[in-house]
């Protein structure tokens, strides 16, 4: 029994076998009665220390963001914190010239990621799942961008986009005075230029997620479908794709979160200057920039928090409900 568990691949073992959950329901009461005082202290520490650290640094700070969003504070001394109610939000929604563009760019970021690299990643996964030769080599090449840090990715793509020395302008002869295409500086172009780099990276990520999902598809389904005379596309559309539902949910959540988190690429490219504003960049600029407007920055963070929780909570409820039922 133990040998079997250890030799299992992690992904197979991560999904509890159907029997495990019912076993879990049976034993714990017995377990609990056997615990000594010392065991209880040990257990308390094992759960307590990590929980305190996580809650203090992640959740308490998230709550503090909410509280600070209703104040103004220059960060110097606690007595300068002033309650201002909804003023920060009012300013943000009505008079900040960067806020709505940032929201728009975050939405564009998500839409582009879900429309281009996601289907492409799925398509590549389906092709690579056909047990073809050199599959490993193709996978490695496509997945490489995910391994390289986003900061490095930013530098690498600047070599392609640089107006003077970049690959694209050199190839199309747009690197001479008067013919410049400024991929990084032009506010109509830069977001799209960065998104190409973001898609480059996201495709490999999606491909791996879908490959993992496809591994879990029961091969007898495929056989039955081909026996019924369905062609490849029909099999995919009617048989395979519906079974990928759990993967699709994960992909959707991952992509929304990625779109909300987008930061590194933009920061390396042009620090979120005109044309590439993002919510994450606005929050950060309020901290490491010259102006220290804590309350205002927190208000933007709260917007980010609310959008994130609107995605995270339903996802987790669905996931954990399934787990309980299992």
């Amino acid at each position, binding site marked *: 029994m133990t040998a079997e568990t250890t030799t299992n*691949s992690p992904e197979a*073992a991560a999904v509890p076998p159907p029997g495990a959950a019912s076993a879990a329901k049976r034993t714990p009461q017995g377990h609990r009665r056997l615990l000594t005082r010392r065991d209880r202290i040990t257990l308390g520490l094992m759960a307590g220390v990590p929980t305190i650290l996580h809650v203090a640094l992640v959740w308490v700070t998230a709550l503090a963001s909410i509280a600070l969003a209703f104040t103004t504070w220059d960060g110097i001394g606690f007595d300068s914190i002033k309650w201002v109610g909804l003023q920060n939000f009012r300013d943000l929604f009505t008079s900040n010239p960067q806020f709505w563009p940032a929201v728009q760019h975050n939405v564009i970021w998500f839409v582009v990621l879900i429309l281009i690299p996601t289907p492409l990643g799925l398509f590549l996964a389906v092709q690579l799942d056909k047990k073809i030769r050199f599959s490993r080599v193709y996978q490695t*090449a496509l997945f490489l961008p995910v391994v390289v840090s986003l900061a490095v990715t930013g530098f690498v793509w600047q070599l392609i986009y640089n107006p003077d020395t970049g690959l694209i302008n050199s190839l199309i002869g747009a690197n001479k005075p008067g013919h410049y295409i400024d991929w990084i500086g032009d506010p109509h172009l830069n977001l799209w230029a960065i998104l190409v780099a973001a898609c480059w990276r996201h495709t490999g990520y999606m491909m791996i997620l879908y490959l993992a999902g496809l591994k879990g598809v029961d091969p007898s389904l495929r056989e039955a479908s081909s026996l019924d005379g369905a062609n490849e596309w029909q099999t995919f559309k009617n048989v395979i794709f519906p079974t990928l539902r759990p993967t699709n949910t994960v992909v959707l959540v991952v992509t929304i979160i990625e779109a909300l988190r987008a930061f590194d690429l933009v920061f390396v490219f042009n620090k979120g200057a005109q044309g590439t504003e993002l919510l994450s960049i606005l929050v950060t600029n309020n901290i490491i920039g010259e102006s220290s407007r804590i309350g205002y920055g927190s208000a933007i963070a709260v917007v980010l928090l609310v959008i994130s929780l609107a995605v995270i909570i339903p996802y987790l409820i669905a996931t954990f409900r399934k787990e309980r039922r299992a």
Partner: protein
Amino acid sequence: MSATLATKQRTPIRPARVLLHTFLVVTALAWLAPLLWALFAALRPYSETSTKGYVSWPDKLSFDNFTNAFEQSDMTHYFGNTLLIAVPAVLVTLFLSSCVAFYVSRFDFRVNLFLLLVFTAGNLLPQQVIITPLYRLYLLIDLPGITMSGKLYDSALGLVLIHVAFQSGFCAFVLSNYMRSLPHELTEAALVDGASVWRLYWQIVLPLCKPAMAALATLLSIWIYNDFFWAIVLISTGENMPITSALNNLSGQYFTDPNLVAAGALLTAIPTLIVYFALQRQFVSGLTLGANKG
């Protein structure tokens, strides 16, 4: 497992296969192109590319830019900073999250589900949601004599703490799923025999989790090594920066020499590439550990 056996049939060479391979070769090359282009630029001297342009046949290829970037920017120092952050962060994250996972997966306390929810949801939050108060908190906490800066801010310790706090969410989720799949009889018998809870964890459960731990360790090392955001915000002294954010700082110095920047960027990426190529299996399975559920 039977899946691989059932489909183990030889596929004859068909035009569709040739087309597929052509498509995959082209795509794979296109995906490698940006990195290869950076490598090409890094191998050429600046003097040559500035006169001939970047799209030109090279007269001379050398590793000079790599050695220059390495020496001029004192990369060993920054690699050292990264090690100082990443090694403890990975180890502590794995230890603490396996403790939590053990707690929630092997016992049936009422708080378990809630606890796991808290950890998992925390990891999904965008970092920017918590950064403003965290930054202030780090400035508030005085640690004279413990960190160079005298505060949690601008210290390796501060980065380790936030990495541990943030990443333990994902690891606790993955490890608890893994531990739940281990047969309950294992720990039950030991508990009846009078083994302590700590022994159950340390001598029975943890050794069985090695595959998952290895996968997570690989994934965490790459993530933490690649971190840019926390370091940019929570470290102010250039000297204290880990390699990825230091590169951003230093690029200003060689603003006029893209070849050198390319070499520097590629040097930064080398450790992650080595880890990836050496431990590819672990890395990919780690990434899909959490995603398979849903």
